[in-house]
């Protein structure tokens, strides 16, 4: 839990006596604790802080979730990859300048759900009803999957539920190091430990509190040595003078440490964000320049790099991966059919499965 700073723990009255709540409070012994009726009490408190988003990251709310599993909505007009999400934790102790959760979560504090029985029942139904083929599901959409793991132990808990569920791939996506607990258990075939990667200069300037590039790659290498499959996410790729060389170095470092065969997938996505994030992030990160780039607005109003630039970024990265024979692991996240078409031609996966051109099903 390096870098985790909790100022106060707030417990939802409904889960006050829950066993996991007690365990969490034991692990957080010494922190001030308040029992509240709902998240509104926490929100009311953090709103009074000059930086409510940053403050929310330092208040832990222990609660129950009404439901956990939902399909990733992707973005209208983009080719969805059929991902599912488990909203087990909400918000993240790290502080990335581009993180859409700053806007999306509407001042939700760092939140941990403890009603695991309900999660298990929901997953049982999900496993029974899942369509044939491969389904990917992960906890990294509204949180960092591993940032709070030493506190919650969610990774091993989830892996055991997913073990021996062929066709259901659980992805734990993170910018943290590897939780030691994962090295003390037998890896499940269908667990993918994934790290989001960016050049160290970007990590230094835009990804406050996260593990450095070397630490993330070392974590991936450890995971592979222990028998896990890994994934990588280049998302968001940022464009700045000198970006190409920096990203090339990241790609080279991956393959110095991780064999191609151990990599399940690598996603590429370029910076994009809803309009509501713009004033908020500019205010919170006055030194960041990423919001002053050239953007276009998509049909639903999101800002993103112009298509010619996005295509260029993806194709350059595809070349870098091709140098290691790994271009077939690539896919694009939240991209339009037009960009996908040119990209598919580039990575020679061709159009044979263009309705679903993702690496785990091609």
């Amino acid at each position, binding site marked *: 839990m390096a870098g985790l700073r909790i100022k106060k723990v707030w417990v939802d009255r409904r889960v006050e006596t829950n066993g996991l709540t007690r365990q969490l409070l034991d692990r957080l012994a010494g922190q001030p604790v308040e029992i509240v009726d709902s998240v509104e009490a926490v929100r009311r408190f953090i709103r009074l802080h000059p930086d409510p988003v940053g403050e929310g990251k330092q208040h832990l709310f222990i609660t129950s979730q009404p439901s956990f599993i939902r399909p990733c909505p992707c973005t209208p007009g983009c080719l969805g990859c059929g991902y599912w999400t488990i909203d087990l934790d909400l918000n993240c102790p790290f502080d990335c300048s581009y993180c859409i959760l700053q806007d999306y979560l509407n001042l939700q504090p760092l939140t941990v759900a403890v009603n695991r029985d309900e999660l298990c029942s929901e997953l049982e139904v999900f496993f029974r009803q899942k369509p044939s083929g491969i389904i990917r599901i992960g906890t990294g959409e509204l949180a960092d999957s591993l940032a709070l793991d030493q506190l919650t132990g969610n990774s091993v808990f989830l892996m055991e539920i997913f073990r021996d569920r062929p066709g259901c791939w659980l992805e734990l996506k993170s910018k943290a190091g590897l939780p030691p607990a994962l090295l003390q258990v037998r890896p499940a075939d269908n667990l993918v430990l994934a790290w989001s990667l960016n050049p160290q200069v970007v990590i230094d300037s835009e990804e406050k509190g996260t593990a450095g590039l070397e630490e993330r790659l070392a974590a991936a290498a450890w995971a592979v040595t222990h028998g896990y499959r890994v994934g990588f996410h280049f998302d968001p790729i940022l464009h700045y003078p000198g970006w190409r060389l920096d990203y090339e170095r990241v790609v080279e470092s991956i393959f110095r440490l991780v064999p191609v065969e151990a990599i399940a997938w690598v996603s590429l996505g370029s910076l994009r964000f809803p309009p509501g994030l713009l004033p908020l992030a*500019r205010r919170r990160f006055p030194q960041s320049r990423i919001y002053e780039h050239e953007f276009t607005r998509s049909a639903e109003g999101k800002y993103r790099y112009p298509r010619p630039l996005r295509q260029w970024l993806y*194709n350059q990265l595809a070349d870098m991966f091709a140098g290691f024979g790994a271009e077939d692991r690539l896919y694009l996240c939240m991209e339009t059919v*037009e960009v996908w078409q040119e990209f598919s031609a580039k990575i020679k996966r061709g159009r044979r499965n263009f309705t679903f051109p993702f690496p785990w099903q091609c």
Partner: protein
Amino acid sequence: MVFRIVKLSDLNLEDRRFRFTLNSADSRLLRSIRAVGVLQPVIVTARQDRQVLVDGWRRIEAARSCGLEELPALEIAEKIGDPAVFLVAFFENYGQRPFSLAEKSLAIRKFYDFRLRANEIIERILPLLELPPERRMLELMLEVSVLEERFLQVIHRRDWKPVTAEQLLSFPPEERAWLLSLIEKLTHNQQREVIESFYSLKRKTGKSLEDLVRKEKLAGPTERLLKGEISAADRLLAALREEKSPLLSGLRQAIEAEVRNLGLPEKVRLDYDRNLEKPVLRIGLEAGEVTELKEALQSLSASLENPEWRRLFQLLHYEGE
């Protein structure tokens, strides 16, 4: 409250402690008062032997212009303190019309100066004003409230949103004043775009506004606009858009040059997605008869050997920085 008739000369209009509204009397109100006088009483209260106006600034202004000497008023007892009296002024207006951002900021300043606790303003007053109940919004509003009158008037008249005010406040005072002279007469959307563009360019380059507008493309329209030529606003906005969007602007210019070089007949029109998200051309033909259609198609097909077509498609599929 007690009803009475007050003399205009008895009112201390210099004392504006309860004033937060910015509208002034318009011709409709003047006409109405000229016709029937002031029917709705203003609200006053006594402070240090003089009557202070609590609400009714527009009516007083109109009454003075119409030469009235007295008008009906409701008087709040002197012993009622300023904070409670201000609540009357606030709610008397609250139900009548939405406040502009400038008025909201002035109202918040009054609550603050009348010692309402910051947390209470955040939790009770900001939601009433449809502002997010957050400390940073309170801080922003307090900053806006102390801007010079002419800034407040522009913010009021053009109905600014908080984000534009926040961007304006990020400029140092002398740049703010320069910006204000530049945009004072523009529409709300033009003002918003000019401020956002300069804000972004300044963040990106770290340059001062003075340095930014030295660029040839920006210098001309800026100068003209400062001289009062409102028509230069569109030129300035176009130049700012180009400045903020060099890749797409460059591609669009190149595409449009190729289209011009193609020299297509008048009845054939080419169109494309200006954002270049969809790398396709759309071709429109105008024909009233089969022969016209034939001619248009023939001239189009004859042009297909021109190298401009290939270059057009290359530009549409361009990828690069």
